[in-house]
């Protein structure tokens, strides 16, 4: 499995650390909504198909990435930064190479 890091390009999965389901929404730290916390900690969509997930390029640039990967085929359809500015990162990457 290869993951195309926006900074580093296509790299083997061994360079990455899986950080799990990217669909979960962490409640506000001050929140006392126990159900929301329980859901955040324990409940998973676990889809068979495209899965929105977080990986860290721990053996490379250490960026946190948001990856959409098919859990049936392991095919990766998109990689962006977890913080969400995928387009600008891809552009910077292209400019660096140029």
């Amino acid at each position, binding site marked *: *499995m290869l993951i195309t890091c926006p900074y580093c390009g296509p790299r*083997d*999965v*061994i360079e990455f650390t*899986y950080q*799990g*389901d990217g669909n979960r929404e962490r409640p506000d730290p001050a929140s006392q909504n126990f*159900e929301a916390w*329980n*859901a955040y*900690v*324990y*409940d*998973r*969509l*676990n*889809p*068979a198909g495209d*899965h929105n*997930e977080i990986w860290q390029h721990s053996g490379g640039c250490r960026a946190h990435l948001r990856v959409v*990967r098919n*859990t*049936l*085929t*392991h095919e990766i359809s998109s990689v962006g930064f977890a913080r969400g500015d995928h387009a600008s990162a891809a552009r910077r990457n292209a400019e660096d190479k140029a």
Partner: protein
Amino acid sequence: MMAEYSAFSLLANALKGNKDWKPAWRKPDPKASYDVIIIGGGGHGLATAYYLAKEHGITNVAVLEKGWLGSGNVGRNTTAVRSNYLLPANTRFYEHSMKLWEGLSHELNYNVMFSQRGCLNLAHTPAQFDDYARRGNAMRHLGVDAELMTPAEIKRLIPALDISSEARFPVVGGLMQRRAGTARHDAVAWGYARGADRRGVDIIENCEVTGFLRDGDRVTGVTTSRGDIRARKVAVAVAGSTGRVMQLAGVETMPIESHVLQAFVTESLKPFIDTVVTFGMGHFYMSQSDKGGLVYGGDIDGYNSYAQRGNLPIVDEVMSEMLALFPGLARVRMLRSWGGVCDMSMDGSPIITTGPLPGMYLNCGWCYGGFKATPASGWTFAWTIAKDEPHDFNAPFTLDRFHRGLVIDDKGQGANPRLH
């Protein structure tokens, strides 16, 4: 019920040219309705059907299997059976399973080749050895056998093991459960299938569940690739496919992630190791099959997957761990590798419960330890389905324990399924 397989029947059939053996299970078409439908014709589903018929007299039962019988995890595991847990809920459950294993070949009149060759967990640091002493004491407290072993004793048991001080992770001792061992995984599926079939259970292969029939909230049956089937009770025992099947029932989230676990077997060797051994400085376990192949595996790949195949980093890691323990195996060729989809729960313990919808019963969360649980899983799930309440053995394994703060986290890893 007269034994179908015996020395006498073997001789009688041999004299008649072996033409009169009956198939171990029929291939019936599904009926329009049953008392109980069990989704999933793996070890747990078949065991559940067997114990429903045998212990509770409920025989109007269908087991629906989307592929062929035994095509899932019951045919993909590394066959180890043990009950060496720390927490009482797990120890009691798995020890019940062990006791059922001890009588299983006789019970089923089917040789499941249960071999109590022991399971040895190696310790590589004094702290780990202390931890094993604690676990061994916890086991013995609940009547399960456990003994600590010294490096010299371990060397006598497994001569090929590198216990020298030059080893990458020197062995300082180990925790042995002598009653643990291995069983022939396919035979477990076939034995339970035949036992259930002969008691009237319909085992329906190539029958994929595509949806649930509902009357309001209540589940009243299933739609399948072979038509609609109604039932008073619908039981789900689909392991790695739990997420998919529950979504068909409208249950969007579960405390489960599906992950792929790979396993490996080498070419056949002469007798090399006559116990199950596990590595304490990583995750590796190995035994030798009766055919002579070394059967071994390690960690799950570590990302969500429904694909029954994995990636190379884990292959590399497992081989490295094998060679750290057994440098002498460096030239042995790996014959096959494969993957199975594991239903990793958020605390590493299973779920065997009524619900979550009316008319539904749920059995899942086996992580990668489901094979050894097969008899007790079927036994307790059958009880739960028949009586609409759990047995004491599975009462702690509820679905709502996560939201109620009652997790059973044997390894103390937290809600991180890829670490269990």
